[in-house]
C-alpha cells in the first residue's frame, strides 16, 4: 500500500542556478492515492480564484495565499477556454456528453480546449472513424453550452479566438 520516493526538484530550468546542489533531497512520502480525480482547467482556475488570484498587476493582496508559481498557472489558464467557463456550463456539458459515447479523457479535453471546428475536434478523439462519432453533434453541443474563448490581447496576429468572439454572441442569444 505504501509507496515511496521522491526526489524533490525545482521544476523550472533556470540556467543561472546550480539548483540541484542544494535543492534536491530524498524524502519518503506515502502516496495514498496517486490519482484522486482528474480536474478540468476550469476547476483549477476556480480554485485559484477562490484563493484570491486576479488579473490585477500588482498582485499584492493575494500574494499571501497565492504563490508566484501558482500565479504562473493562473496566467496560463486565463488565456484558455477555462477563463470564460462557469461551473454550470461545464457540468451540463459533461452530462449531455454521455449520449455521445466519449471517453472521460476526451470529454475533459473538449472542455479544456473548446474546439469549434471539425479539424480542432479530430486530434482529441481516438480513432473517430472506427467509432462512428457524431462530430457535428458534439460541435453543436459545444457551441450551445460552453462559453466562447476569451479575447486575447491584440498583439498576436491571426488569433483564432478573435474571430470566435466576434460571432459567438449572436449565436448564443438566438439559441
Amino acid at each position, binding site marked *: 500500500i505504501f509507496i515511496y520516493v521522491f526526489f524533490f526538484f525545482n521544476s523550472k530550468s533556470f540556467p543561472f542556478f546550480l539548483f540541484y546542489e542544494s535543492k534536491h533531497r530524498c524524502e519518503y512520502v506515502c502516496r495514498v492515492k*496517486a490519482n484522486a480525480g482528474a480536474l478540468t482547467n476550469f476547476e483549477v482556475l476556480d480554485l485559484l480564484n477562490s484563493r484570491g488570484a486576479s488579473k490585477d498587476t500588482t498582485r499584492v493582496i493575494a500574494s499571501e495565499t497565492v504563490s508566484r508559481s501558482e500565479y504562473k*498557472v493562473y496566467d496560463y489558464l486565463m488565456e484558455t477556454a477555462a477563463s470564460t467557463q462557469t461551473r454550470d456550463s461545464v457540468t451540463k456539458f459533461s452530462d449531455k456528453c454521455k449520449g455521445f459515447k466519449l471517453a472521460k479523457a476526451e470529454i475533459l479535453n473538449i472542455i479544456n480546449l473548446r474546439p469549434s471546428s471539425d479539424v*480542432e475536434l479530430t486530434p482529441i478523439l481516438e480513432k473517430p472513424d472506427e467509432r462512428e462519432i457524431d462530430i457535428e453533434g458534439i460541435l453543436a453541443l459545444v457551441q450551445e453550452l460552453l462559453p466562447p474563448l476569451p479575447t486575447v490581447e491584440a498583439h498576436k496576429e491571426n488569433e*483564432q479566438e478573435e474571430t470566435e468572439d466576434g460571432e459567438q454572441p449572436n449565436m448564443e442569444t438566438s439559441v
Partner: protein
Amino acid sequence: MFCLSELEDTVRVPPSDLNLPLEVAIKKALQKLFLDKVLSIGLCVSIYGIKSIEGGFVLPGDGAATYKVRFRIVVFRPFVGEVIAAKFKESDSNGLRLTLGFFEDVYVPAPLIPTPNRCEPDPYNRNQMRWVWKYGDDEFIIDDSCQIKFRVENISYPPVPTERAEDAKPFAPMVVTGTIDDDGLGPVSWWEACAPISDDED
C-alpha cells in the same frame, strides 16, 4: 492536465510558525516542501486541502513540532493523447521546445513535426533554427506568432544526473514529449482557414 493526488507525509513546523493557527502553519510548511516541485506523480501545482492532521510531537533536541498530515494536492500531469495549447519557446536542430508558462519542458522532436519539413537558420534570431513545413505549394513557418497545439506522446522523469558539464542545459526532472503531426495540431494559425462547422446558422 491536472489531477488531484492524496498524499500522507510527516511535516515539520518550525518554531517560528507555531504562533500561527495550526492549519495555516502546516499549509505553509507543505507549500515549501511541495509547491513547484516534481514528484513521481507529476508537477505539484497547488495544495488543495488538508484532510487530517495527527501527532504534534516535539522530538528531543528539536524545537519544531512534527505532524503526520494527510492532504490533497493539485498535480500537473497530462495524459498521453491529451491536446494542449502552448507557446513557442525556442527551436534547434533537434526539434521544438514549447512552454506553458508554469512548465517549460515540452519538447517536440524532429520526427514528430509534419513532413516534409526543413530546418533553416532563423533570419531573425542568429542562434536559433527555424522549422518550416512544406505542404503542397505552401510553406508554413513554426514560430511564436500564435499558440501551438500539441498532443502529448510521452511523459518521462529522467533520473538526476550525477555529473554534468558546466554549460549543459539545466536538468529537467519532468519532460513532456509532444507531437504536432496531425490535423488540427501545430500553430493555431495553420488551421484558421478551415471554417468552423457550427457557425453556419442564419
